[in-house]
């Protein structure tokens, strides 16, 4: 006690800060950092979950490099990212931009947009899966049949399956992005718009030269956040393609699903861990690139 009493105020604050931080720090080390380190270690080993771990060196990575499925999955993952992020960004901005100007039923509409974000991804995936079924079950195809348009194979097509799975994934994240965009829009002082109105600046100039530049921090956040989400897409794909995980000819399979299959179908832990490390590196590089590109010049 004497030792504590002799500390300066600053030192006492540090002691207390660490006392409170100790629990989360221990938690993070045990639950996060230890498994992460272990995953990197396993990626250099052979392990079937029950047997002995044996050293394999770079074998898992070399196998990955020469695996055509990996490259297909790699392309799919980036397709989710490159289509999903801009599409969800534009849609959520357009919704937020107009919702912000609306007074009538504002709260109710905002709730409607936020609802999918709170809904279970599994339930949602199964409902969308039903939408996509052929006649006489699927909603979309029934509608097409009713107006006399030929059937569309959604989930059983190598070209349509990926967009068909991406659509509900975009929709599910929309509510969150709309809320974030609205908060960003609200933070822009009204007088900026009033000044522009007095100067007679047309609305598109206001949008592209005032609103969007001032929303940049919000946009950076949403881009990074949704990119990570699309790179890690799993539950929508898994639940909409059960029975044939990854769709016809792996056309919808994202990296996380490949990891899941390697680990829990093939029990090739070393191979799965190597994929995890690659995914981690991709996430890291993409996030850093985005932060760098979108940062203030």
């Amino acid at each position: 006690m004497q030792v504590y009493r002799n500390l300066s105020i600053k030192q006492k604050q540090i002691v207390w800060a660490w006392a409170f931080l100790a629990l989360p720090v221990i938690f993070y080390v045990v639950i996060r950092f230890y498994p992460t380190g272990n995953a990197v270690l396993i990626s250099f080993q052979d392990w079937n979950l029950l047997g002995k771990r044996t050293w394999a060196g770079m074998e898992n990575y070399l196998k990955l490099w020469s695996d055509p499925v990996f490259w297909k999955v790699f392309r799919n993952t980036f397709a989710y990212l490159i289509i999903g992020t801009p599409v969800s960004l534009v849609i959520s901005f357009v919704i937020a931009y107009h919702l912000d100007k609306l007074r009538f039923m504002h709260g109710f509409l905002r709730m409607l947009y936020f609802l999918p974000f709170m809904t279970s991804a599994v339930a949602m995936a199964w409902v969308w899966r039903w939408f996509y079924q052929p006649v006489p079950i699927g909603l979309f195809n029934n509608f097409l049949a009713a107006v006399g348009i030929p059937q569309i194979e959604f989930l059983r097509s190598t070209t349509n399956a990926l967009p068909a799975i991406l659509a509900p994934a975009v929709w599910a994240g929309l509510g969150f992005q709309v809320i974030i965009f609205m908060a960003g829009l609200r933070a822009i002082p009204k007088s900026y718009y009033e000044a522009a109105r007095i100067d007679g600046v047309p609305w598109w100039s206001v949008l592209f030269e005032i609103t969007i530049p001032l929303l940049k921090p919000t946009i950076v956040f949403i881009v990074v956040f949704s990119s990570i989400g699309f790179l890690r897409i799993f539950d929508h794909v898994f639940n909409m393609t059960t029975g044939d995980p990854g769709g016809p000819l792996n056309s919808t399979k994202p990296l996380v699903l490949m990891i899941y299959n390697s680990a829990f179908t093939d029990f090739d832990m070393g191979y799965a861990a190597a994929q995890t490390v690659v995914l981690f590196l991709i996430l890291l590089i993409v996030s850093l690139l985005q932060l760098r590109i979108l940062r203030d010049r």
Partner: protein
Amino acid sequence: MANVTLRSLGKSFGKTEVLKDIDLQIEDGEFVVLVGPSGCGKSTTLRIIAGLEEASTGTVEIAGRVVNNLEPKDRDIAMVFQNYAIYPHMTVRKNIGFGLRTAKKTRAEKTERIEEVARILDMTDLLARKPSQLSGGQRQRVAIGRAMVRDPAVFLFDEPLSNLDAQLRTQMRLEIKKLHQRVESTIIFVTHDQVEAMTMADRIVIMKDGVIQQVGTPSEVYHKPANTFVARFIGAPSMNMLPGTGTDAGIHLKTGLNFTGGPAVASRREVLLGVRPEDLVPDGAAAFVEGKVTVQEPLGHETLIYVDTGAGEVIAKADGRRPPEVGSQVRLSALPENVHVFDAVTGQALT
């Protein structure tokens, strides 16, 4: 160059009536200050003139044409906002030039105009900077520059100085006044600070609860306040109000003394006697304030003394070097022409 006329202007937000029957004639080139406590409707009036709010009733005329249904950009006005409303992601040059976006001018003409404005406001070397690299006063100048660049007929200022510190405010006050003498445009300036109103205005419009209390030159509103609100609002420290009753011999004050020499007041009529601290002089023969000094506030060139009269406190200004001691008894009077008499019920001036 334009005059501005407001005719029986009214504004309601739902059931709340914030402006009632505002009539005001502003001459071409005049510097008019709207002043009043917060919530008096001065900013709303300005925003209606700008076209940012719609009038519920009445008309706004600028340069002889009714502008009620015109967009702000078509009204030939410019506005300077309290928070400056300059865009943080644009350079000073772009900020000033933003107002010229829709002007029918060549690029060279626009550049020339921007530089001319920058020269007038003495900020040519700041053109390449971003607002974050500017001080408060410089930002204020950018906001004024953006308004000036369009060469509007009427400038509207919405409390532009209230975000500045006291010293800078005094300086900007002077700059705006000089600017007005130079550009000779009509200026309508909103503030809650009576000192700003007094120092800058050609004419002051004092408002309270959405109603104009008095319109007049600084000297008029100071020396001939129309009612007790104006009397108290203009001038610091504010005017002393001594309650009293009319008698045949003058006004009998609650303090027990009589004031004579003022206007005739009907017998038994309740009045308020208004007298400014600086008009109260010690030991006049006809003293109507008597009491003990309770507090001294030295200001250097003068000292404010608070006198307890037994029927309320009175503030008087005394000599800065030899003010009456705290605890001493003083007798104060004022020249009859410096004493204002108000009706105690309506607050209207009787003199």
